[in-house]
């Protein structure tokens, strides 16, 4: 059984470290991820903003490829990509006319037999069962688990039990020996696609998020979405201007955090790639007593 992998564009660019750390963790736990050959962009918010058909067709191509390459499951770590792919799949499976039209666009067959996994589902299904034997460190810090929009909503796609206050990420962090805090901005929006076109909005929304995390004593913020990451990490200067104060809580990808607990060296997790130094988070880590 091949376990497919769809990195998505950001994970080849600004959020390399996400795929890097995901693959590192997977490898550590003896799980091989196979990248969908010749996958293309999901269209992200641009496609569904400007062209409905395109927003279904673009993911459809990749989904069809995955099917042809005989993948039963595909891991989609990027929350945004997952959202678009799942939406596209749902649209085609629920409406025959959409399916027909889309197959016309991509001129490929689509069967809909690939199961899409969010990063949580992947970790729960493939990493959790074996994780304990590899976890050597306690992260030993207060973390604010940040889901953002696309991991929590809409619930018919994300399949979360408690969309308003999910706990999936917390489960992972507890395994990694961190203490997740209870906070209010878990599922608030960070500004997503506006990081370039409306930086002011990003600064405001991400600002609120950082502020609440800081107020509640978070030592690190954990994310599972490249957009959330770049907004909370790269946009720190703008946020600083917005809040008129400096918050230097590092933002880690969930897989980086897990990787650290497994003692994977920082460079293999791409910790250096962040704008906000992750040193603070790393320094808290202690050996896990047997």
């Amino acid at each position: 059984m091949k376990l497919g992998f769809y990195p998505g564009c950001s994970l080849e660019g600004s959020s390399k470290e996400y795929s890097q750390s995901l693959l590192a963790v997977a490898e550590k736990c003896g799980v091989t991820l196979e990248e969908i050959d010749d996958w293309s962009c999901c269209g992200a918010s641009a496609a569904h903003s400007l062209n409905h058909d395109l927003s279904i067709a673009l993911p459809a191509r990749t989904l069809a490829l995955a099917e042809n390459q005989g993948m039963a499951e595909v891991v989609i770590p990027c929350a945004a990509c997952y959202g678009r792919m799942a939406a596209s799949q749902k649209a085609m499976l629920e409406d025959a006319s959409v399916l027909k039209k889309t197959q016309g666009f991509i001129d490929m067959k689509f069967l809909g037999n690939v199961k899409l996994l969010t990063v949580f589902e992947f970790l729960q299904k493939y990493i959790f069962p074996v994780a304990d034997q590899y976890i050597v460190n306690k992260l030993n810090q207060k973390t604010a688990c940040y889901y953002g929009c696309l991991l929590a909503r809409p619930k018919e796609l994300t399949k979360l039990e408690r969309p308003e206050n999910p706990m999936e990420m917390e489960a992972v962090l507890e395994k990694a020996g961190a203490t997740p805090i209870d906070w209010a901005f878990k599922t608030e929006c960070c500004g997503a696609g506006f990081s370039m076109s409306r930086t002011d909005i990003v600064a405001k929304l991400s600002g609120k998020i950082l502020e609440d995390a800081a107020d509640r004593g978070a030592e690190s913020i954990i994310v599972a979405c490249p957009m959330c990451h770049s907004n909370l990490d790269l946009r720190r200067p703008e946020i600083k201007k917005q809040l008129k104060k400096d918050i230097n809580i590092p933002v880690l990808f969930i897989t980086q955090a897990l990787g650290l607990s497994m003692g994977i060296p920082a460079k293999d997790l791409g910790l250096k790639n962040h704008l906000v130094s992750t040193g603070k988070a790393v320094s808290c880590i202690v050996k896990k007593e047997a």
Partner: protein
Amino acid sequence: MEKPTDKTHTPSLRKRMELEIGVLPSHCYQCGKCTAGCPLNEDMDIMPSQILRILQLELPGYEAKLLGSLSIWLCLACDTCYSRCPQEVKLSQVMDFLRQESVQQNKVNPKAKDILKFHQAFLETIEKNGKLNEVWLTLNYKLKTLNLLQDVNKAPSMFFKGKLNPIPERVHNVKEIEKIFNKVRENEGGTK
């Protein structure tokens, strides 16, 4: 229902929307929960709940008002509204629909031009490469908006941190992607 405004008897914006995306404004009872929860409500010129209200009433000139609004471009499709709506009105889809209409009828709000250009730059980059390359996207976007200086200070640091990767990743068979784009366009009768 509003009478068709012109001779050609095209169905009203509301009717077209109902037919295309199957969202019925009549289901909204104006509780305002969507507006209350919207992360961008402070920046919007027309509140989400009011957008539905306008669609319900269809007062003369309402189409221009909606298609020219900034709100439809500010919506980030975070689906907070939909996930809390007691009547399950898919507001984010309404926004998508209105955006596309406003582009087609080029009524796009001047304040939203940058957002639109970003989206267009994004799609063009994909059309060329099949994948998104942030460097290309950024350049393309800057050329469109001409605010070339935005983020230049960031570029070097990002570059050294390996966040920027100038050599674009491309889909082997880019033609395929182009085909998809063309077919979709044809299907729409050459809009955009």
